[in-house]
């Protein structure tokens, strides 16, 4: 998985930003994105062992939206959530095993690699924050690093929560890493540009409460927000559940049940483009799954 991310990273060096004046994001990001979309299946084929290669079509939709929107040239917690879902799917199919040692590696090696790759994409191609909550959110671009990082610090009391107010911080956990990233890219006093993080550092007594609070905040402000999840492709390994009105993963049908019908989320309705020549076939947003795409099993 890290090799896959390393390869995506190497493409950045091969696709430098265009020198021509842009509105904000650099159009070269679309070239990088096209390369990802063109090679995604191939990358997944290389990644997956023979008995799991059939799942590649179900993983591809998450992979190609994990790094931002190539059209809008932005990146946000929705894209990060897609990467989270990719890791979830890789666990569901047992590419990763849900045992502590492996899960630790997924966080500390794979997720950190992903984070650094995203930072490089943001810097090189000047990606806009997608749907940032501004001073009312945790971070303009990401969230999971804080959840995972606070979990890394959860079971100790030597390093206090307020320690993040005294940079520089060593890269010893994802929380510190994320805070130092903010110092690198934002200007002005910390309590002003990152007031949520500041108030957590000042007001929350221990890392356990930080961690549990961030879980609740993530649910409320990312997963439960239509504006974010409307862009997540569902159906197949991860489905929309009409009953509980929550997203859950189907753990029982690992490729053996061919009668399993995929369920699309309520907002995955077909939008017909005006003046589109092929009006008999609805135009689908390129980021969404079509049920016919998921016949890989």
């Amino acid at each position: 998985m890290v090799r896959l991310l390393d390869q995506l990273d190497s493409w950045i060096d091969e696709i430098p930003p265009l020198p021509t004046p842009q509105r904000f994001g650099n159009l070269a990001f679309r070239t990088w994105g096209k390369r990802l979309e063109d090679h995604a299946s191939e990358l997944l084929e290389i990644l997956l062992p023979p008995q799991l290669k059939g799942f590649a079509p179900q993983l591809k939709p998450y992979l190609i939206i994990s790094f931002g929107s190539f059209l809008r040239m932005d990146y946000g917690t929705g894209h990060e959530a897609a990467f989270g879902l990719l890791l979830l799917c890789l666990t569901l199919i047992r590419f990763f095993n849900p045992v502590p040692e492996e899960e630790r590696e997924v966080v500390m090696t794979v997720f950190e690699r992903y984070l650094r790759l995203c930072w490089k994409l943001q810097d090189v191609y000047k990606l806009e924050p997608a749907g940032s909550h501004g001073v009312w959110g945790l971070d303009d671009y990401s969230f999971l690093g804080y959840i995972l990082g606070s979990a890394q610090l959860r079971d100790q009391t030597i390093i206090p929560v307020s320690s993040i107010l005294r940079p520089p911080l060593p890269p010893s956990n994802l929380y510190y890493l994320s805070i130092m990233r903010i110092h690198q890219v934002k200007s002005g006093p910390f309590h002003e540009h990152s007031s949520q993080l500041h108030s957590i550092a000042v007001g929350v007594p221990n890392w356990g409460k930080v961690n549990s609070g961030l879980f609740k905040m993530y649910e409320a402000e990312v997963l439960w927000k239509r504006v974010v999840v409307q862009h997540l492709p569902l159906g197949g390994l991860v489905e929309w559940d009409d009953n509980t009105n929550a997203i859950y993963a189907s753990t029982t049908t690992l490729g053996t049940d061919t009668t399993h019908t995929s369920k699309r989320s309520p907002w995955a309705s077909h939008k017909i483009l005006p003046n589109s020549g092929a009006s008999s076939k609805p135009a689908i947003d390129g980021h969404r799954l079509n049920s016919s795409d998921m016949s890989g099993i």
Partner: protein
Amino acid sequence: MPSDLDLQIEQLIRCEPISEEQVKRLCLKAREILIEEGNVQVVDSPVTICGDIHGQFWDLMELFKVGGPCPSTSYLFMGDFVDRGFYSVETFLLLLAYKVRYPERITLIRGNHESRQITQVYGFYDECQRKYGSANVWRYCCEVFDYLALGAIVDGTVFCVHGGLSPNLTGIDQIRAIDRKQEVPHDGPMCDLLWSDPDDIQGWGLSPRGAGFLFGGDITKAFVHNNALSLIARAHQLAMEGYKLMFERTIVTVWSAPNYCYRCGNVASILELDENLAQEYKVFQHAPADVRSIPAKRPPAEYFL
């Protein structure tokens, strides 16, 4: 009552919120004025056109330094007054107070953030809760949002809208037929006007935002031609240089929130149209630290209790 309003304006200019009762009365008065405005409000030049503010109050003060104070300068704000910044309350209420005090000197049109749904995600709702202890002020403001015009037209030839065009609207007259006094719908022409983006494509495209559409240079030029316009001015998208002209200067994005999210390093701009509709773009930066008040430090959110 004018003198009361003048005091409120003085208070808001110091970035101090007014009382809930004052907000209620201000919003009622504003609605009485806005209800008389058309969906496409008619505006005379000279006028200074502004883009997204997003609660960046001190940067709005910079804007007034660069463009001149209201009411000596006539202004047109193209929406997105709230969300993301620290001071959506003070920003919106100041602009509203100006509107009530000098209705002919300032025009406010609706952005996609002037919506109940969006403000519950992006901060304005939270800010109202923090500053007033209840959702009342938020409700009063959302009711005003419903009355804001959808667009404006300067001297009959410069069409101003927050987002962009709609496949369902080829003529400005069709915009006038919309019933705008409602929450921004999820789709349809009213939604498109507030959500669409110009893009380097031919024809229409699905918007990656999940609302509105992308529209190309051909669509833009056709709309300009068919409606005898000289320019479409819009906002809605960040611009590194504060503004961005496209499609042979038939459409311009004006963005008025400098150093967006404290990291983008962009400048902001305003578009000054003189009485001959000659365009001048004035660019400005984030307000220096010494003129900004320090936002009150807050306790952590409820999630952590």
